[in-house]
């Protein structure tokens, strides 16, 4: 027998935020005549202790089995009211919130009468939906306690170490045959002056000896399936395939140095990159008498709009190194803007100037020209072109996204930004997480970073990744897709193809091929429900019937 629906409506004044612009009394009176509504209360602040207690009391005394609060935004207050319902013994998903403040009183401050009519409609729509709400239970699932780190550069190694030290089993995959990444090509690190290769080797040694880290070199990832807590990874090492499971994934795939082919007469000998300069340092073959460095080569232009951030400090560091090695060598740095943030970096810039490095600003509309034995640049202050002698030109080129980024983003179903770097879940609130749960990022994979930044990001990402690992179980909001009509599903797989989270799969059961929702992976966006032509799928609390009822409730009176 169907239960009798008993809805309680609470209309909040929000002090004068709502009551100052809408006729709240009329709203409360109106709510009383709506179908299934058995109890209405007007509160000064529904979210206050008083208001909360009134809701609890009404649920118990009036036998309410649906609660509607007409107040502010669910973004801030839905969890509170849901909790209130739960405390009073009512399933928290039998609660509906109507926003008559942000969507009504605040935006119709001059139109009390019309605003009140609109608020009545919004309440009517909310009540209509509430009548169709169904109880939901939170979803729990066990975690695979292992971790995967992709990329064996400084960020990847650090993340793997951090996770390994916490006691989790970690697989570290590196596509080349050697750990260390970009550091292996560098000479010294600013601002400490530490030897880059030594730093990389030291960390690599620790990784290799760590009992919890399983190292896979020369390995490519072929396929990743699953979701947080239950990823299935297939990889191949020199043609031999391996498969393993993991609970979380850290992406630390790094970046490449842009090769300035065709720019400023780049030839790898007399016109070289900063990276090649460091290789010259390492080999001890540095002998130039006049060095001109050009900044922002291939960066901050139409093709690559971003600033690679680290190249200024690389240039300053190398300029100092030249001056220290051979003080009589002239070093000129042609720049657009200098990025030397932080106290140590600013000090290095000062040190370079003290050592006699000359910094000359150039205008991108009038870029320097490299000619035999000289560089010609338009000097803004002098207002004319000047000639700088050179026997070595060093180009500061940006870091660009790794060539595998696109492939990896498809494997993991995570996003890239316009420059093909990986895109974090939220610029401010989730800088080390992807939008997809259980996948994290750090280091150059995200954006050009110094070693220090890459290491702190790696430690942060490892820390983020260990939160679900340490819980052991995942608990997820039940606002997810559900297969509501198994018979209607024909197992066509269109929904599976469209799901951005890999939260759907086709399984062959007694009734043939049917879709199955993996609730812990589902985020409840509803693309599947909006696509299924047999309406076999629906989203909890946002079903076709519930949305349809809202539409009808809105239009029934105006029609």
């Amino acid at each position, binding site marked *: 027998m169907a239960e009798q629906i008993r809805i309680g409506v609470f209309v909040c004044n929000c002090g004068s935020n709502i009551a100052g612009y809408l006729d709240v009394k009329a709203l409360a009176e109106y709510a009383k005549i709506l179908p299934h509504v058995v109890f209405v209360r007007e509160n000064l602040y529904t979210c206050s202790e008083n208001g909360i207690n009134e809701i609890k009391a009404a649920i118990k005394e009036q036998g309410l089995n649906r609660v509607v609060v007409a107040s502010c935004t669910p973004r801030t207050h839905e969890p509170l009211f849901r909790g209130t319902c739960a405390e009073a013994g009512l399933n928290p998903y039998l609660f509906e919130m109507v926003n008559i403040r942000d969507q009504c009183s605040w935006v119709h401050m001059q139109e009390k009468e019309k605003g009140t009519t609109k608020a009545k409609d919004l309440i009517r729509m909310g009540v209509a939906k509430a009548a169709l709400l169904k109880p939901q239970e939170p979803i729990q699932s066990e975690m695979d306690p292992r971790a995967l780190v992709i990329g064996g550069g400084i960020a990847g190694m650090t993340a793997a170490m951090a996770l390994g030290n916490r006691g989790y089993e970690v697989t570290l995959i590196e596509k080349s045959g050697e750990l260390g990444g970009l550091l292996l090509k560098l000479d010294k690190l600013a601002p400490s002056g530490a030897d880059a290769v030594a730093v990389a080797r030291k960390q690599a040694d620790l990784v290799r000896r760590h009992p919890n880290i399983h190292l896979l070199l020369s390995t490519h990832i072929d396929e990743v399936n699953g979701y947080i807590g239950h990823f299935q990874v297939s990889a191949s090492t020199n043609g031999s395939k391996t498969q393993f499971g993991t609970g979380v994934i850290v992406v630390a795939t790094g970046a490449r140095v842009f*090769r300035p*082919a*065709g720019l400023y007469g780049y030839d790898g000998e007399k016109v070289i990159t900063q990276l090649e300069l460091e290789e010259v340092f390492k080999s001890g073959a540095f002998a130039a008498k006049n060095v001109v460095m050009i900044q922002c080569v291939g960066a901050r*232009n*139409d*093709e690559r709009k971003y600033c690679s951030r680290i190249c200024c400090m690389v240039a300053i560091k190398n300029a100092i190194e030249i001056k220290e090695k051979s003080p009589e060598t002239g070093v000129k740095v042609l720049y657009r803007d200098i990025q030397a943030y932080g106290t140590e970096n600013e000090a290095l810039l000062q040190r370079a100037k003290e050592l006699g490095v000359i910094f000359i600003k150039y205008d991108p509309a009038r870029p320097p020209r490299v000619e035999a034995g000289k560089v010609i640049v338009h000097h803004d202050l002098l207002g004319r072109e000047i000639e700088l002698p050179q026997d070595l030109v060093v180009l500061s080129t940006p870091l660009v996204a790794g060539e595998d980024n696109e492939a990896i983003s498809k494997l993991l179903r995570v996003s890239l930004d316009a420059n093909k770097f990986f895109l974090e879940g939220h610029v401010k609130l989730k800088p080390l997480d992807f939008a997809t749960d259980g996948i994290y990022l750090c280091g150059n994979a995200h954006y050009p970073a110094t070693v220090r930044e890459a290491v702190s990001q790696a430690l942060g990402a490892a820390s983020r990744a260990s939160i679900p690992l340490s819980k052991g179980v995942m608990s997820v909001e039940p606002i997810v897709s559900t297969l509501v009509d198994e018979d209607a599903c024909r197992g066509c797989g269109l929904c599976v193809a469209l799901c951005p989270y890999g939260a759907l799969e086709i399984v062959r059961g007694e009734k043939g091929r049917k879709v199955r929702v993996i609730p812990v992976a589902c985020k409840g966006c509803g693309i599947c429900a909006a696509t299924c032509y047999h309406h076999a799928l629906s989203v909890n609390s946002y079903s076709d019937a519930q949305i349809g009822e809202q539409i009808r409730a809105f239009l029934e009176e105006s029609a």
Partner: protein
Amino acid sequence: MQVSDKQVIIFGGDPAGIAAAIEQAEAGRRVVLVETSPALGAGRIPQTHLLNGNSTWADPNFEAAKKHPNIRIITNAVVEKASAKDGSYTFRIRRKTGRVDPEKCDGCRECIRVCPINMYDDFNEGIGFRTAIDFFNPDTGDFNIFREDMPVCQATCPANLDIRSYVGNIADGEYAKSLAIIRQNLPFPLAIGRVCPHPCESACNRGYMDEPISICTLKRFVADYEMKNGLTAPVEIPDEFHREKVAIIGAGPAGLSCAYFLGRAGYHSVVFEALAEPGGMFRYGIPEYRLPTPTLMHEINWILSHGAELRCNTRIGRDISYEEIVKQFDAVFIGVGAHKGMKLQIKGEDMEGVVDGVDFLREVNGGKKWPAKGKVIVVGGGNVAMDAARVSWREGFEEVHVLYRRTKKEMPASPWEIDAAEQEGVKFQYLVAPIEVVGNNGKMTGLKCLRMALGEADASGRRRPVPIEGSEFIAEAETLIPAIGQAPDLGFVPDDGRLNISRRNTFVVDKSNYMTNVEGIFSAGDVETGPDIAIRACAGGRKAAEGIVRYLEARRAKG
């Protein structure tokens, strides 16, 4: 059974074709049966069986032919090319795409129910629809996906540009994408967009309805858009180049296309050019008003940034020997074009005042001011003659006459060029042929001509002009420009007879890789095809570059 080594080919898999195949096979011959539709016996089904819809029709021979050991059945195929030599025939047969796995298809017809694409049903002469995936006829089954073949425009274009995609992208406002598609096959959108006689537009299906899509002008538009807005065209070359180097002789459309595609594949090239500036016929054959030099140079500079080095004023055989080049480089591409004008083969042709069309255009395009005075007669009806006439008019000749021995209808020049010449005041004399240059003291004063009438059609399908007896007359003129065709100048090739040269003074190449009979020597463009349109030379340059890459790879693999 005795199987003879003679093969018989039968076109058409209808009952008669099947019967003939079995007859020939039984007689001991090997039979190839070619059918255009996806199934044998699909085309002709006895009317009685069609009317009696439910009975399954099967020719008893049908199964026998399928199982016969001597019969090879090729369905879903068309004959592309046939040639006969010494009583034997060679056919090139192209199989159309087959996208249904006959092993797996059980004929459930579910695909027909869901396929959203309705097509013209050729089995029912368009009375109903056929879906894109369908059986070919109700009795034989045999499902297939009917895919559109290569669009006619793309098939007609010598460079096989993906016209549909790049025009579609222009419609979407995706100009960069559009250019990227063009540049996959052609590095010269600016130049070709201006000069191409666009055979694609003549083939365009839209022409049957109203007017063809303006493919050529659209290409020019999108390339101009990039240039005029100062956008940089991306240079797509690999980070590392291979160590082999390729010599390219001739910086024309073919040579520069070859250099471009070699650069994209990671090979450096050195382009040798006899004249002062690169561009070949683009630079020295096509007048400034059709293709401005700055525009051309803009494009050429971009092409050269793909790892190509240009050496102008370097004529092979004068500045560097052919043998030297062959010794220094790992492969050689010859694209010297056809710059030698054909002689009229009439008396007095060596008199002062007679200048060949290509020579005239080269001089003027090279910046020489022509001493234009009095009347000029241009002989010929092709685009070179039109260019020569229109340039003469611009150079300041008082009167410009074009003599052509057939009528306007037979003229091979592009109609818009003829119209433009007429508009500019060039006078056309049709059905006139020159027979002698007359003059004083070795200086020309006039041209003796003969009137013609049109006779029977010749091998090219055009009606052959026949002289009218006694119709001689003398046309007074100070200058004569014969423009009746060009041939390659192969003077630099050592006459050791090693390089295979055709009767028309062109190189003979293997069309699969554009290699001449001498290993490592490749050729394309006018020097290989004879005088032809620019885009065919570009296409040849690309295909030769592909051939060179394969050749060098194979050589490296051998060690």
